[in-house]
């Protein structure tokens, strides 16, 4: 027994290390943030493998998703313009960040600050602001959308929803 004990200990240690290494090797975590995007370009987004940084949900569709690029090249992803506004509000790089949004009318990445937003669209978090490249009736610009989001005047408020949608 006395002789067996060290062997046993070594055996257990080896199996523990083996388990940890095997698990670490096949570790696949969804993307939440990408670094070194110095050019501040819109990155290709991996649908169903990227988490929204505000609501923590998986981004299931490219349409209406966003990317926020900080001046140091860090990039965060969002599934709804509303989430992005709420997340960005207390960040220090709020003014300097480059924001990309994938439009629902032309299907491409454009600068979110130039996009036009519908007020009663179906979006991932039900805030209702769908991003468009071209202005159509009843759309608002970025700063108006930002203001409405921060004031809580969006479809998530039941009274506003009744006013806009009638239900």
């Amino acid at each position, binding site marked *: 027994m006395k002789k067996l004990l060290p062997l046993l200990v070594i055996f257990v240690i080896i199996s523990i290390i083996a388990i940890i290494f095997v698990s670490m090797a096949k570790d696949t975590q969804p993307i939440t943030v990408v670094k070194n995007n110095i050019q501040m370009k819109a990155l290709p987004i991996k649908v169903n493998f990227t988490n929204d940084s505000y609501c923590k949900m998986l981004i299931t569709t490219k349409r209406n998703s966003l990317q926020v690029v900080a001046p140091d090249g860090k990039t965060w992803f969002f599934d709804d313009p509303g989430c992005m506004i709420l997340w960005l509000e207390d960040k220090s790089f709020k003014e300097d960040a480059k924001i990309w949004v994938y439009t629902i009318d032309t299907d491409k990445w454009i600068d979110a600050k130039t996009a036009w937003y519908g007020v009663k669209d179906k979006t991932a978090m039900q805030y209702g602001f769908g991003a468009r490249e071209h202005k159509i009736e009843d759309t608002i610009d970025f700063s108006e959308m930002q203001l409405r989001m921060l004031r809580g005047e969006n479809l998530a408020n*039941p*009274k506003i929803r*009744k006013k806009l949608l009638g239900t």
Partner: protein
Amino acid sequence: MNANAFWHFLTLQLFKERSKHLSVIVISAMILFLLSSVLFISSSIRFSLEETLKVQPDFVVSRVQGGISVPTPMIWEDELIDIYGVSNVIQRVYGRYFFKAKERSFLIVGVDFLEEQSHENLQKLIAKTDIKAFLNGSKMLVGEGVKTYLDAHFYKDDYNFLTPEGTFEKVNIFKTLPFQSNLIANDMMVMPIDLARKILGYSEEEVSDITFNVPNPDEWDMMTDKVSALHYDLQVVNKKDVQKSYENLYNYKGGLFLILFLVVLSTFTLILYQRYSMVYSSERRNIGLLRALGWSINDVLKFKFTETLVIVFASYILGVFFAYVYVFVLGAPLLKEVFLGGQNLQNTLTFVPVLDFSVLTSIFLIYALPFIAAVLIPVWRVSVTEPKEAML
């Protein structure tokens, strides 16, 4: 040292010096009594309310204008029934009726006795009630407080309500509600819903508010959202909000008391510090003798510390016991008015005893910890007495 001998000596010493400890025990017990009574009352009321909240409807919907509830249209009831997942939609009619001359008021609650469920509930509440007799003619059930008050004002069997139209409505008192429900029903008058409407001045199409249940708690947030989108002037409140406001109410009462109590407590601590410094300095000679007899500093510390602990526990038990009797046996005369008020109807209720970990530990911490903290330094000071003090 032998444990038996230690205790023998300790208790002997305690009783020999009892006059020194007695005053401390009495004052401590008094402070503890006050503190425990307040905490007992508030935790008892909280417990009772939580129990009753369990059977309360999950949601209340009412029309709100300018922050004040106004009569709610009955059509809203049908709209609610149509929502999937909503069950047990019930209209409520209630309001206060002022006995103007003497500035007292009652709460009138209308119950729809035509419903099967209400019959059962009534039957359960008041055994051997002849429901037919109750529904025949205008009759009401009154809380104990109401009954006592009406008796004293010459309304032995009935009461004449003055409706907003200016007509008199004579309602017979059928029975008194059981006294166990005094906490919630002391000022209540329960009557058929149509009668209540007439007395409170509601029209046929109006109710005070509408309640409903949502059996699945996971749907509550979604349901609040959905229901409040029905009308712009609709306010929906759920049971958790009610629970929270009760919690806040009693935290507020108890908390303010505790903050004021801190003043008493710090004075008490200072007095203890002073007193024990004095008492112990007169004991230096005794301790010096013990040290000369071979006690180590640790032994003396242990001795003095145990002595303090005995006093702490004795006064803790005494204080809590008297508070228990005062609150749960005698019904906390005077002090309960801090919690329930005393301007309206006299409420004679028995509090449901609640002794839980939280209350007892709170009492112990707020009392014993400052006590021991105050005594620690005097205890140490006397324990390190040099043996040579015995010669002086």
